[in-house]
């Protein structure tokens, strides 16, 4: 099956920031979380995928097609941070506008989302709360039957109940095996709940892009002293942090001798250690 998204050597240079040779593959039917701190390059990556900004190197392939082809965007649903829909239009008008743009627009489906999300049809978009705006953005993104959803911080700033509702909707979307999602967020718990793959961007570089379960299986937390750490093979220790009570290290489970007590890691642990931890010299 064709991959939903392929980035090869994607590079964008600004005077003060470089997104550096990003290689990433999102298989069809999967959800990939793009994680990174503010300014890591998540939104730039998404803008490049959409072709909204010109890249300096690399290629972007969406569902097997070059991303420059307008036709491929019929298959694409997008929710950008703050939704970016016309401020002075109401939900009904926005539906009619998008109906005049997408060939596959399903007005009945759009209406059903408005009803499901309890969004008023006559209220202007700028009068919506952030949660309502994001819900309308999601309704708009799903109502033309896209195969790939691209979500840029779609859940940030939402209360836990709304976030949970939206995450369930995304999980429903990927029940169809040719539906895929690329979702950027810095709320790691959301991505841990939702994603099959995790891609971690740090200062414009892709530090890893792997299956979530493989990451959780590969890494573990080791708590002990600096001396304990020095007894290990250097390649076993991905990073460590020194605390008042000792040392905490992110280690590769398979490279650690049997008998040592290891704790389970979360994706958040892996990211924090990768970003802030020290390396054994």
């Amino acid at each position: 099956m064709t991959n939903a998204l392929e980035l090869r050597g994607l590079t964008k240079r600004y005077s003060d920031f470089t997104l550096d040779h990003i290689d990433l593959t999102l298989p069809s039917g999967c959800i990939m979380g793009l994680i990174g701190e503010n300014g890591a390059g998540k939104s730039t990556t998404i803008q490049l995928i959409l072709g909204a900004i010109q890249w300096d190197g690399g290629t972007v392939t969406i569902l097997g097609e070059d991303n420059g082809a307008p036709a491929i965007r019929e298959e694409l649903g997008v929710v950008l941070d703050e939704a970016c829909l016309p401020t002075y239009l109401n939900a009904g008008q926005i539906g009619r506008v998008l109906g005049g743009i997408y060939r596959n627009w399903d007005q009945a489906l759009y209406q059903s989302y408005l009803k499901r999300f309890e969004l008023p049809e006559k209220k202007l978009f700028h009068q919506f709360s952030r949660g309502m705006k994001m819900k309308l953005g999601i309704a708009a993104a799903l109502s033309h039957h896209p195969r790939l959803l691209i979500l840029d911080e779609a859940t940030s700033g939402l209360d836990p109940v709304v976030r949970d509702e939206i995450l369930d909707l995304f999980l429903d979307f990927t029940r169809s095996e040719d539906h895929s999602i690329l979702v950027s967020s810095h709320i790691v718990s959301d991505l841990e709940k939702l994603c099959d793959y995790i891609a971690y961007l740090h200062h414009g570089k892709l530090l890893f892009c792997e299956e979530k379960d493989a990451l959780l299986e590969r890494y573990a937390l080791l708590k002990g002293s600096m001396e304990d750490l020095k007894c290990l093979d250097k390649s076993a220790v991905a990073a460590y942090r020194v605390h008042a009570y000792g040392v905490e290290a992110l280690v590769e489970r398979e490279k650690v001798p049997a008998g040592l007590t290891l704790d389970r890691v979360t994706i958040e642990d892996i990211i924090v250690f990768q970003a802030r931890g020290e390396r054994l010299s």
Partner: protein
Amino acid sequence: MKGLLLKDWYILRNKGKMYFVIIPVYLLIALVQRNSFFLFFCAIFAAMIPRTLASYDEHARWCSYTAALPLSKGQVVLARYIAAMLTLGFTLASICALYLAGAVLLRLPTSLAPLVAQSALMVSLPMNLGLTVFLFSFYTALSMPCLYRFGVEKGRMVQTALMLVFMIAAGTVAALAENEDFLMLLHISPDLLLAGLVLLSIGLLAASYFASVKWYRYTPNL
């Protein structure tokens, strides 16, 4: 593209109703004025509407959203030019309606009749329409590429500079059109001038469209 036109129409309907009132009101004033200031000011005023629409789009960050839509840059820009042409159409229709109203007033024994008789609006309908088309097109052709190149805010500065050029051009064209002796001296008949203005307008808008497509950016602030 139909959707983009619908969006612009909804924005004007929800936020720009005053435009549809102010243009006829200015033309009504022009109907009782000897000079053509209000008539041609309407052309400028109408030509500002596309910029207003663009500012609403930029405020909403709609430009970023259009990158994800199944539309080419050419279609996005063309929709805005068509919206501009529809605005021009509304202005021309208003001029025609006011001209007809003036013609009716001239036949009625009212105190307004002498004022209307001297009105610049009643001098020549084809010439007034032609000059409105030219002034609107000239302004639009200069301002739209700036808008797409620099975004609404930076584009406003460039547009202000263009206003100066525009006013000088408008004044010159108006003076030429009103001075038939001068036209005779140049062997240009008013009809020929009218045809020339319309052709020039089409040429300017076509060149402007291609420049706008070349400069169009989905993220004007980046």
